[in-house]
């Protein structure tokens, strides 16, 4: 099935599993979802469980937080991560802090879903990768399904979590077809080694996982054995899996669609320096986005974001210790 269908199946399963769960967001109902993920659900579940909101991100996100506080299990869809900036105050100053501020008396079991990423020529206001903004915030959990099985099952894991969870769904994956397993592969906070290798760890997540896997394939043809680590969860990071991989391969290339400076990849690099320094045989490298708002023309957009060939070149460089 497609990634879109896997997400949709996950939403349906969640609605069936718990009467307290509902889906709320812009154009999730009558329009069928901006990216057609929730198409048909309004007819099936009705207006009390598939709720079209006005364009008021701060408002409906705050309402979702309140509903969670009041005993519901809301799935709040923010059409794209770009619009989540309008709701960031509610997410950061309320959802992430309530448990702590109340001395543990209140928790916020809300799930936020948002589309993210570049690649569709949507230009500078519609192509963001803000995962690292949210991964910076204590009190939030941030997950990024890069496989169809994760797209299908991570929502249930997020809903089972007593605290706010943000799910990033990369727009370039929606039409991709893939296999879905019968159940979740691992707890949501665990990173998984998607391909075993000896020479270099390619650390990726979400929309760039398949690029890392493609790069590993090309490298294999050239006699370089790359291991692919799928982070899956961006906060908290599964350090043990990361470090175990680097201990084995002695080299790391981190792939992240965020801008190079201040990227999540930078955080992972720091973790390796702090806790895996003596494993290293080469500098830790990052393949990130160029320091430019995402431009509209296709060739510039592609030049700005991580590419398979960039990952391959970077992996070869670290093999040389560069």
């Amino acid at each position, binding site marked *: 099935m497609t990634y879109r269908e896997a997400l949709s199946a996950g939403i349906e399963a969640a609605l069936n599993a718990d009467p307290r769960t509902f889906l709320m967001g812009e*154009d999730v109902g*009558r329009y*069928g979802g901006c990216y057609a993920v929730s198409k048909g659900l309004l007819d099936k579940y009705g207006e009390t469980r598939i709720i*079209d*909101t006005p*364009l008021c991100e701060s*408002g409906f996100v705050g309402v979702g937080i309140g509903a969670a506080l009041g005993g519901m299990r809301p799935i709040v869809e923010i059409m794209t991560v*770009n619009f989540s900036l309008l709701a960031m105050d509610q997410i950061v100053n309320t959802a992430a802090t309530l448990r702590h501020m109340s001395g543990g008396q209140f928790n916020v079991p809300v799930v936020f879903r948002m589309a993210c990423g570049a690649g569709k020529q949507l230009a500078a206001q519609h192509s963001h990768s803000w995962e690292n903004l949210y991964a910076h915030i204590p009190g939030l959990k941030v997950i990024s399904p890069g496989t169809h099985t994760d797209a299908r099952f991570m929502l249930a894991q997020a809903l089972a979590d007593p605290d706010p969870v943000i799910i990033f769904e990369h727009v370039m994956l929606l039409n991709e077809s893939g296999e879905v397993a019968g159940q979740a592969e691992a707890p949501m906070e665990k990173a998984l080694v998607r391909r075993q290798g000896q020479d270099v760890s390619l650390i990726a997540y979400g929309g760039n996982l398949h690029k890392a896997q493609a790069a590993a394939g090309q490298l294999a043809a050239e006699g370089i054995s790359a291991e692919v680590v799928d982070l899956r969860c961006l906060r908290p990071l599964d350090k043990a899996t990361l470090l175990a991989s680097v201990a084995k391969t002695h080299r790391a290339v981190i792939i992240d669609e965020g801008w190079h400076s201040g990227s999540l990849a930078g955080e992972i690099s720091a973790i390796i320096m702090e806790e895996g320094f003596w494993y290293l045989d080469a500098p830790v490298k990052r393949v990130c986005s160029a320091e*430019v708002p995402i431009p509209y023309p296709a060739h510039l957009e592609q030049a*700005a974001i991580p590419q398979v060939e960039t990952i391959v070149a970077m992996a070869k460089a670290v093999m040389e210790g560069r």
Partner: protein
Amino acid sequence: MSNKLHINRDHLLEQLKQMVRIRRFEEKCAELYSQQKIRGFLHLYIGEEAVAVGAMAALDEDDQVVATYREHGHALARGLAMGPVMAEMYGKTNGCSRGRGGSMHLFDNARHFYGGNAIVGGGLPLATGLAMANKQQQQSSIAVCFFGEGAVAEGEFHESLNLAALWQLPVLYICENNRYAMGTALQYSESEMNIAKKAASYGLQVAQVDGMNVVDVEAAVRKAVDAVRDNQQPYLLECLTYRFRGHSSFDGQLYRDKAEVSEWEKKGPVKRLVRWLTEYNHFETEEMDQIERQVEAEIAAAVAFAEAGEWEAVEDLCKDVYSPTPSGDAV
């Protein structure tokens, strides 16, 4: 025809031509999109031409315009040349934003056109700030902000109107109420569906106008502009209109039925003006044909201009992120 506005035949023909320019340009964009010459999101203005054409006719050269992601019509009516606008759709360096913005981000400094903005409601505080600067610098120009009724649900709408009224800023808010925020009808997003009434509660002068009638729009905007300029205070004009196409090029329009669209198409701004001209101004088919021919030639030239444009070199990827330093080098 109303509001004591003296409108002569030549002016009406000019307005008709402007609307046809936009209509045909948008149709060409839809075609080019289907051929993948234009990419990204494409939001067409077909059906709403009377608003931009009527409004722009009432503005001074120095007034500032802030628009939305459905802004091709505003750009053309404001006087941006069609070639650079089309080249921008292509993403070429001869585009009005040098190819970096695309359909949703048309800009033109010379015409004080502050761009398409892809964040709903994002333009309202911007226009309010432009107005603040005009007032502080005692300039007579005013800021004009176009936005859809969907933006009324955003906090930026309420915050901007309150600030503009509180500080008495010379800004004209023009709400293009086309009844659907993407797929969400007004009745599902606003408890009070009369937007003018909402705005009045913040202490703005307000009016509503038939946004399918270019003459009425122009008259209403003239009146509003005078009020803003003379009294140095904000004003909101709600234009009741309708888009004939989907929200963007990829829209199954599951949220409305075709009969409703056909009903509105009968009231279309181009048809309406043609009827008016035919009835009262001895308008000939030949004149319409001539307009169509001129527009067709202009569009063909614009497409050729876009086709002939250059792709930017990848080496220049990180250009225009920061302004040049005094030494003349960009950071």
